[in-house]
């Protein structure tokens, strides 16, 4: 189960350069499982219930004042827990704004994403939102779109075009949110372990926050292990177990990516160190919530964004850009800390319940205006 719900569907790693083999297999398994996994039920409901939109008070600017506005959403993949919820949020927000949203889903077929983007350019869309994709594949099409005067907003895509609005999850804020909790729990001068891998943009950003925070608190890093593979969670268990054999006296372990955190949790349990070693992870999903709230789970805190809220915020960003009111080329979505105590005390079992209990996840203040009806959850 942890293996099939791997990183592509919901972690920020998918956009980075390396794990394409893993990515393709993960997406294949995600596609296979999308129909039968428990989480897809929850996300379907989320899509339906995400509709209640706050009413907007302001006067709509052009072109929104002139009726339906055509926008295209070109996705590398829409399958899996994370991307389904992201898509539901985007569709709900588009509906609330009076946007005629055409969704192109390449189903993880990169060649198709290139021709999808090309079709979107010819479809007469005023704005194109590009969700993930290989830069080498989509950059030429993005340039074409910009040249034709189409506004382009990308999510988690590295782009060289200066006219493109770039949106992404704020990885630094994600790491900071967890590390603040960790500092509160462990105090100064604690002996700690670290599970991370270099070479992935998202993880590297979390790494730099880790170094700063560890220094500031005088933490002693007893070990650093970790690797990203086709089944990251299980493949990290032996590594972390070995490290914990040598350093069973660490007070906490930071594993800033949920697959790494899952592996660390298993290793801590293997060594029967739960209760002594606390695990601090990153990212959040239905599976992660279940992992954190399981009996005797050492995973005490994580941080994440709500994919549905992120999808909605990306559409709002595109709307502002089209109305000429955005006035910036980069929007980052901050993450929120989520602790085990919070989850258990509120009896939270999935993302839907988390959204209700933690309104900070809804990104209501990001990319909004008085004429935009935010979709609430």
């Amino acid at each position: 189960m942890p293996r099939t719900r791997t990183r592509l569907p919901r972690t920020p790693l998918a956009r980075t350069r390396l794990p394409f083999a893993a990515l393709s297999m993960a997406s294949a398994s995600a596609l296979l499982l999308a129909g039968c996994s428990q989480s897809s039920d929850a996300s379907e409901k989320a899509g339906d219930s995400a509709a209640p939109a706050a009413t907007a008070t302001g006067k709509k600017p052009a072109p929104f004042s002139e009726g339906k506005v055509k926008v295209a959403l070109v996705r590398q993949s829409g399958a899996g827990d994370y991307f389904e919820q992201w898509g539901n949020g985007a569709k709900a927000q588009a509906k609330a704004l009076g946007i005629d949203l055409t969704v192109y889903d390449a189903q993880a077929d990169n060649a198709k994403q290139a021709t999808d983007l090309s079709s979107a350019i010819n479809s007469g869309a005023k704005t194109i939102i590009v969700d993930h994709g290989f830069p080498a594949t989509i950059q030429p099409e993005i340039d074409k779109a910009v040249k034709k005067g189409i506004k382009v907003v990308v999510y988690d895509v590295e782009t060289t075009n200066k006219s493109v609005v770039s949106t992404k999850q704020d990885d630094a804020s994600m790491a900071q949110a967890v590390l603040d909790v960790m500092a509160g729990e462990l105090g100064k001068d604690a002996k700690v372990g670290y599970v991370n891998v270099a070479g992935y943009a998202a993880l590297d950003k979390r790494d730099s926050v880790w170094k700063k925070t560890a220094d500031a608190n005088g933490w002693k890093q007893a070990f650093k292990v970790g690797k990203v593979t086709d089944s990251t969670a299980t493949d990290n268990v032996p590594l972390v177990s070995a490290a914990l054999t040598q350093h069973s006296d660490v007070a906490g372990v930071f594993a800033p990516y949920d697959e790494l955190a899952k592996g660390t949790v298993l290793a801590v349990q293997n060594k029967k160190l739960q209760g002594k070693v606390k695990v601090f992870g990153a990212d959040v999903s239905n599976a992660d919530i279940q992992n954190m709230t399981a009996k005797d789970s050492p995973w005490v805190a994580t941080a994440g964004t709500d994919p549905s809220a992120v999808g909605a915020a990306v559409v709002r960003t595109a709307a502002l850009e089209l109305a000429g009111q955005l006035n910036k080329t980069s929007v980052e979505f901050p993450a929120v800390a989520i602790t085990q105590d919070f989850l258990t005390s509120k009896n939270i079992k999935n993302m839907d319940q988390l959204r209700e209990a933690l309104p900070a996840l809804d990104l209501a203040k990001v990319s909004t205006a008085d004429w935009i009806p935010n979709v609430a959850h």
Partner: protein
Amino acid sequence: MTTTQSTEVPTKAALVPATSPALRIQSAVIKYGFIFVTVTLFAYFALSEPSFRDSATLLDTLRYVSVAAILGLGVTLTMAVGGIDMSVGAVAGLGVTVAAKTMVSYNQVGLVAILAVIAAGALAGLLNALLIVVLKIPDMLATLGTMFVIQGTKLVLVDGQSITPGMTQADGSTAPGKFTEGFLRIDRGTVLGVPVSVLIFGALTVVAWVFLARTRWGRVLYAIGANPEASRLAGIRVGAYRALAYVLSGVLASIGGLILASRIGQGDVSAGTSQLLEAVAVALVGTSVLGRGRPNVWGTALGAVLIGIITTGLTIKGLPYYTQDVVEGAVLILALIFSFTLSKRRTA
């Protein structure tokens, strides 16, 4: 004798005296039903969606289907000899990897990459031929086997990673090359406004049609497909011709891979896998064109165009991809009814 079937099937339709109007209508439905469906769908989308009738959209549609169509031509050749090549998607994917490896890791020019990819495709075809002709494994099973082997091989070649310019390689060095401008033009370039990949699709269609319908070799392939034993008794070297069909299929699939590689612009270990079913589907849809009831080149090309029209049209209409699968599947079944049920009933 069935060997005479290798000459044109429609002539047989002409031999059936169209005595009753009902029979004449049925004959027309079988012959033109497919083209009617295509034209109707096209007209429907063109009238209801202004952006659909834009020439840029139409060229995009052709560009999108060019890979499945070219792979479908290979499938058509192997279906002509009574087999089927299930490895075409994997071979196209292998082409993407070989192209990336040649240019990015070994810093070679585009022409070298093209030759390497086509050589890899021919080798894959030879492997299929070996299994099928020499080792007597049934076509579909043998090519399913090679599909897995090739998918695995392309991952072994690159340690399971997609090759990108500037990546750190297994030995710690940085990849020296990139996709050359010339190579990228295979899919991204245009001649007189028409994408090069569409021109390749058109040219290969004509070449394959001449080969299969207008040369002795083509007629021999059909004869083998209709009755291998009779062909053998007639002095045809059945094994050699079947091997030829698979090698050509491998080469065509690798050309599809070249287009994919150019479209993606970097290595992509997952490329090609989605192409197999579309390639087989267009070849099967093609069997119903003009009521031939057998694999034929124009049918495959038109089948690809129809699939493209459906995909593009429904996307513009805002239907999600899974409903497109339903519609495409229904069209395939309809085509098969034209090909098998109706034409059998007529000739019975």
